[in-house]
């Protein structure tokens, strides 16, 4: 065993406050799902007014534990104790009445309802048989003002940006007088600025006596905001630590169970001639608004160009236009000198493009196809996968087995549906398919979004390896850290234009952040 931390239920940390301060305690929680022991004798406690981070990789059992506390599932064994009393939680109704609120990772909001309707759903105020929208709106305004949440009760939820939708979720819990709020991966969908706002709101809440369980897989966030951090791995609690007494490396060890390299190991590399050339490209989105305006840039073989920017500044449309998924309305795209402007994805693929799409479940995989079929999606029509128009299952199978071992995809077999794999392994299937071909250009859009530390580390190393082998890499990411760790040059997109282009070595985080926020500074 190379594990630095033995699996143990005992917490070495001495209790520093008196027992009555504990508002919620989970004791010996065990939950078995078919084939997985999701929670194994888990102990966890939450003190009044603290932010307790629950840290772990995807599949570590964090969400399961919270769903058990919230009443969406029932534990096989163990007790949940709320305010000193053993609580029988059979459904969300029970947990809500105990003062527990939960903000789910995928928001539980109805886009066609107003904020007020979403907030009151399940706890409606009725006046003479009808919904009393005015009273609800007044209460929402009051909560909103009290905690600086800025939620308009009459706005349609579907029209709100993600950051505001999340606040509506928080209002929903406070409207039900929640004193314990569970936030499940709340920053996964937020821009860095929105995440900062969320942290401010979390601190406001705790200052007013609300206790928060903060589920995350991001070490930095746990260290930045939590009062205590509990790390889970493979269904067990590994340890509970204070942020002041630990660091990223130690936490990563506990999460993954082995040493993790947090910095990307990237040597200097000589860039060759341009592989991707974009001239004066303009693209419209599906609402027919021009979201990319006259963009020009190039990416050379053996370099990574990172496109930084807050989400929704044209990155999605740009990468769709470059991969053949969307027709540009103006300008030219060249791959290795071939004009591929507006060409279909197959032509792009055959010219040597590998695409790791933003939405891996919709554009990267056919979720109901097997891993083996997904791995052949780019070349199924060629020998050896097809002969005289007939698919060769044996060739698909061999290909899949080879890629599964080469790219370390954790799947029970090549015949399992892609939809059954974890997010990290789904991404590995895409990476394996795209990068196992002979590739001149890699376009990776948000390649590590929502993935665990181990998978991120792996995907990063693959991207660097492609660059070292001479491919041109265009990396689009909303994570500035990722951009700075991987890129040789960085382009900043703001409102559909590239407002800055710098060499990574000469750039600073602060300067990039300013450009991303729209401060126009002369290109360095």
């Amino acid at each position: 065993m190379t594990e630095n931390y033995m699996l143990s239920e005992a917490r070495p940390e001495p209790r520093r406050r008196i027992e009555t301060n504990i508002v919620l305690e989970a004791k010996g929680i065990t939950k078995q799902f078919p084939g997985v022991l999701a929670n194994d004798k888990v102990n966890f406690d939450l003190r009044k007014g603290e932010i307790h981070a629950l840290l772990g990789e995807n599949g570590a059992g964090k969400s399961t534990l919270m769903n058990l506390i919230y009443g969406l599932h029932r534990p096989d064994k163990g007790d949940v104790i709320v305010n000193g009393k053993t609580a029988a939680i059979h459904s969300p109704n029970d947990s809500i009445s105990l003062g527990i609120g939960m903000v789910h990772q995928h928001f539980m909001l109805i886009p066609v309802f107003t904020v007020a309707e979403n907030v009151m759903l399940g706890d409606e105020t009725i006046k003479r048989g009808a919904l009393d929208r005015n009273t609800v709106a007044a209460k929402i305004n009051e909560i909103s003002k009290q905690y600086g949440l800025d939620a308009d009760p009459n706005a349609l939820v579907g029209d709100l940006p993600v950051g505001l939708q999340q606040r509506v979720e928080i209002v929903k819990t406070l409207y039900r007088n929640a004193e314990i709020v569970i936030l499940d991966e709340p920053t996964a969908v937020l821009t860095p600025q929105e995440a900062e706002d969320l942290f401010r709101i979390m601190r406001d809440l705790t200052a007013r006596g609300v206790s928060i369980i903060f589920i995350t897989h991001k070490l930095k966030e746990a260290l930045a905001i939590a009062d205590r951090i509990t790390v889970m791995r493979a269904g067990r609690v590994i340890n509970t630590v204070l942020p002041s007494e630990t660091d990223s490396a130690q936490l990563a060890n506990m999460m993954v169970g082995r040493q993790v390299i947090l910095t990307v190991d990237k040597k200097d590399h000589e860039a060759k001639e341009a592989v991707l050339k974009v001239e004066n490209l303009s693209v419209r989105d599906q609402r027919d608004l021009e979201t990319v305006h006259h963009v020009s840039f190039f990416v050379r073989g053996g370099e990574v160009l990172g496109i930084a920017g807050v989400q929704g500044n044209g990155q999605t449309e740009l990468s769709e236009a470059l991969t053949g998924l969307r027709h540009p309305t103006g300008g030219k795209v060249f791959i290795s000198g071939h004009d591929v402007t507006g060409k279909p994805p197959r032509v792009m693929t055959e010219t040597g493009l590998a695409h790791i799409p933003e939405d891996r479940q919709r554009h990267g995989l056919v979720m109901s196809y097997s891993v083996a079929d997904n791995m052949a999606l780019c070349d199924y029509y060629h020998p050896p996968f097809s002969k005289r128009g007939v698919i060769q299952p044996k060739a698909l199978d061999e290909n899949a087995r080879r890629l599964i071992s080469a790219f370390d995809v954790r799947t029970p077999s090549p015949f399992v549906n892609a939809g059954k794999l974890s997010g990290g392994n789904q991404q590995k299937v895409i990476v394996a398919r795209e990068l196992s071909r002979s590739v001149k250009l890699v376009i990776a859009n948000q390649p590590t979004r929502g993935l665990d530390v181990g998978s991120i580390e792996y995907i990063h190393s693959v991207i660097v390896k492609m660059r070292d082998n001479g491919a041109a890499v265009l990396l689009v990411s909303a994570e500035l850290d990722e951009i700075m760790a991987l890129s040789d040059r960085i382009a900043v997109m703001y409102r559909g234009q590239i407002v800055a282009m710098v060499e990574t070595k000469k750039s600073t985080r602060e300067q990039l952040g300013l450009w991303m926020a729209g401060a126009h500074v002369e290109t360095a």
Partner: protein
Amino acid sequence: MDWRRFGVIALVIAILFGVVVLIGKNQTPPMVIITSMLATTIAVATPLTLGALSGIYCERAGVVNIGIEGMMLAAAFFGWLASIYMNSIFGFAPMPSLIVGVIAAVLSGALFALLHAALSITFKVDQIIGGTVINILAIGITGFLNRQLFFEEGSIFGGNVPHAPGILPSIRVPLLADVPTFGRMFDQQPITIAAIALVFITHYVLFYTRWGLRTRAVGEHPRAADTVGINVARMRYANVIIGGCMAGLGGAYFTLQSVPSFEPLMTNGRGFISLAAMIFGNWTPIGAWAASLVFGTAQAMQINLQFFRELILPEWAFLKNSYIVGLAPYILTMLILTGIIGKTTPPAADGVPYEK
């Protein structure tokens, strides 16, 4: 419902009215023709309106119901059967017999809806298949019982179809029905009046009450409803059964209000047309009613043109053939379903079983 859609509806109705007025104007004053058309339109739109309301209750809660046709057919038969039993065998007066008939129709609609709910909510059968099962079952049961009870030697009614207790009498809306010419519109039979009332009741229930908010929530995002403590399956069951009651009342129209007899397959696709009305009305009760009136107008045109057969000009001779005019509702359905009149948005979780 957007105004554009109402505009299209008004335009289609105006054109169809215009055709009849143009043909008949030399024999009958236009005002009389228009009033007669309006009265017929409102009456024949009844089963479509109720069918569309049935669809709205089911689909707003997230259950696709293409079994409305079957629910209506079964209700038409069992309502009629109940009224005959009450009248001929138990010797009740016609009026109480008809009322029992309506109740039986509503209950049989509810019973078939319960089957659909069990198939699609508890057993998570594909809802299109579940609806098809209802349709086939209704055709089979009504056809079989109709033969066995009435036309077979030695059957209960011994090969003689007994006299039905008649049809529901019309009710004059006080004051309004006394208005000259237009008063005719307010002289309608009870199921028609109930259908119109139900349109507005449903609108209120869906958009202004707790029940409606929760119904729409389970149809849009059942998991979100679940996380705030709403029992998704119970809400869906209840709404599908309410929808069945609507379809049942619509079925009663055929045998207890329109004509005092039952024929196999007599709903004749009305259940499907009402689904088109529901879609055209964008899953709103008032919109669906407006759309039902369009189909009703097409049918009213067919009925009213028969009075003016002799006046139709030779170059319009095709209008003399009532079968061709009778195609109008179906052609309208097809046009509407191709979406040429703008996009409609079904509830987001419509037709998707909820897996915890």
